[in-house]
């Protein structure tokens, strides 16, 4: 029982970061129809920014976190303007190929800059964990969970409450009509990509100090984000949130009671299973044909 409780707590904490990763990806897909293969790179970029700020130039941990997220937003905006803007209106495969190219280039630039050796980041959190009866969790992970939850809630508020969010939703529902209504689609796309990238960078900056930072860390993160998004249905924020927690629980319990080796496989098996039964995911709002 104690073991199950501990697994559940681990999964809950993990689920928050999966949801954070998934939301960024699902926003970008829903609004821009871009399958973003650079998502994992933004994740590792966030982690390296964190490493650079905290370990190399000795910035305060929390300030560094904010800087890393801002840097992620900036990089996202640059990528969108430089690579995607001129491809608008082409098919989904073309943008996907460009994103794959960007992914390869970014990852290897990172490897070149930081070398392949894994880096770790110091944290200001107490090293002894928070103990809750039979289970325990580190303060660092608890912090990660809290920030992730806040960012998820913030993104949701941004989409539902603000003017920018309304324009985003209008674009998601019907691009042509949004255009007629005077929505600046170029700006919406840049803002969406920057926001999604910022969320990925935030996830990286949060998890970098929990684990270690290395150039290919984004690959697994990308795949997890895809799994989360498929689970929740492309384009749905609540879907991605729930999807993140489902994936985390599947992985944790699968690793504990089935086989730890297949931990990372759970997500993919789930994707295939879900697409067979319900090809648009569990919470899809709408899928356009094409």
């Amino acid at each position, binding site marked *: 029982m104690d073991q199950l409780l501990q697994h559940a707590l*681990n999964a809950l904490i993990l689920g928050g970061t999966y949801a954070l990763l998934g939301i960024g990806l699902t926003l970008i897909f829903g609004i821009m129809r871009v399958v973003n293969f650079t998502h994992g790179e933004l994740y590792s970029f966030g982690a390296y920014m964190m490493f650079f700020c905290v370990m190399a130039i000795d910035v305060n941990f929390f300030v560094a976190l904010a800087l890393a997220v801002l840097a992620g937003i900036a990089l996202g905006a640059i990528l969108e303007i430089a690579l995607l803007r001129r491809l608008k209106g082409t098919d989904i495969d073309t943008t996907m190929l460009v994103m794959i190219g960007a992914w390869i280039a970014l990852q290897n630039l990172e490897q070149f800059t930081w070398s392949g050796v894994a880096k770790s980041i110091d944290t200001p959190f107490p*090293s002894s*964990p928070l103990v809750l009866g039979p289970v325990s969790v580190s303060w660092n992970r608890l912090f990660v969970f809290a920030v992730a939850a806040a960012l998820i809630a913030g993104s949701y508020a941004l989409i539902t409450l603000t003017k920018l969010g309304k324009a985003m939703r209008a674009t998601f529902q019907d691009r042509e009509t949004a255009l007629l209504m005077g929505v600046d689609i170029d700006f919406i796309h840049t803002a969406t990509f920057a926001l999604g990238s910022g969320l990925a960078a935030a996830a990286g900056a949060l998890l970098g100090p929990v684990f*270690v930072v290395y150039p290919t860390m984004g690959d697994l993160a990308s795949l997890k984000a895809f799994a989360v998004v498929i689970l929740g249905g492309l384009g749905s924020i609540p879907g991605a949130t729930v999807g993140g927690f489902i994936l985390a629980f599947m992985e944790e319990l699968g690793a504990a009671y089935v086989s730890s080796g297949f931990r990372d496989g759970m997500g993919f098996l789930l994707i295939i299973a879900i697409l067979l039964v319900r090809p648009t995911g569990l919470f899809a709002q709408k899928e356009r044909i094409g």
Partner: protein
Amino acid sequence: MKAMTVRFALAVAGAMLGTALLAGPASAQDTVKIGVTQPLTGAFAASGNYVTEGARLAEEEINKAGGVLGKKIELIVEDNKSNPTEAVATAEKLIVKDKVPVMMGAWSSTLTLAVMPKLEEYKVPMLVETSSSGKITTSGNPYVFRISPTSEMEAKAFTPLFQSLGIKKADFLATNNDFGLGASKEFSEAAQRAGVEIGVKETMDPKATDFSAQLAKIKASGADTLFVTTAVEQITLILKQAKDQQLTARIITTGGSNSPDQLIAQAGEAANGSFHLVFFTPWFPEAVKNPDIARKFVGLWNEKKYNVGGLTEGFRGWDGVHVIFEAIRAAGKAEAEAITKALWDVKVKGVNGDIAFIKQGPAGKESAQNVPSVYLVKIDGGKVVRQ
């Protein structure tokens, strides 16, 4: 269509020309080449880079002292990216393109096992500096010369400690490859023979970073000791995460890729109380068999301002290159066959101890194995202490 074919032929011919150029002019043999294949990137990157740094120190020292056969030695280092297929590709490149007469590598057991058929194919000897899987020296490959201990040797050396440390029940957590699974098997068998109860045996992907599920399971097993076998990056994370989950079992790491200094630096408090089987103790050089050589090596390492945490890995590169150097000198020529023969008779005073080879494996196709020294150390209060 016709014109197409012509253009296509032109394009391909151009590409072919490029390939032909790629071959390049044969460089004059003014150095004695030693091929090194190490994981400079990927999961084992940290250790591979340390071993390479150690090897470079030896290269520099040997060349300062005049080299061998009147020439300087030249290390040609290739990155095998922690991947067995890449390891084969690097061996192919080193032997076929660079024409090295002897190699050193390939760090992990999996990588070394992958390279071994190439050694037989081209009849080039390789000095194995790190790998621990028994299979390497028992599979009948006469081109393998290993200076690191096998898991079996390590487990045997550890056997008396089961009792003196008071181990009653042990769990095992190992990386999912020859190195980890081999150690897990040897140590659990040794434990069983010593009357220790076996708890759970968990594995992890060599690239995994989150072990919370495995650790929760291990915690539930209630054993007093956890044997961990993997590279230092994963050990760091395991120590931290074990502390987060309040795992009280004593952690003992095996395999010698554990760099206590790096653990203290990166895992901090979480490293306290953990035990480590190492093959070199730079914290107290007087404890090893050849303290002078150990001090010299540590001195040169610190002079270069290399990471102190890398000493327990780097010494292997140093020892390996010195053994190869002795063999080339004894052979009198830089040819694979002569070096293979000479390696059998070398006696080298190394950082780890006195290095010499004994025969292992099927008769007629024996591989060479050194009997190295093994030490157990403990991290206590942020310091490495003798055990």
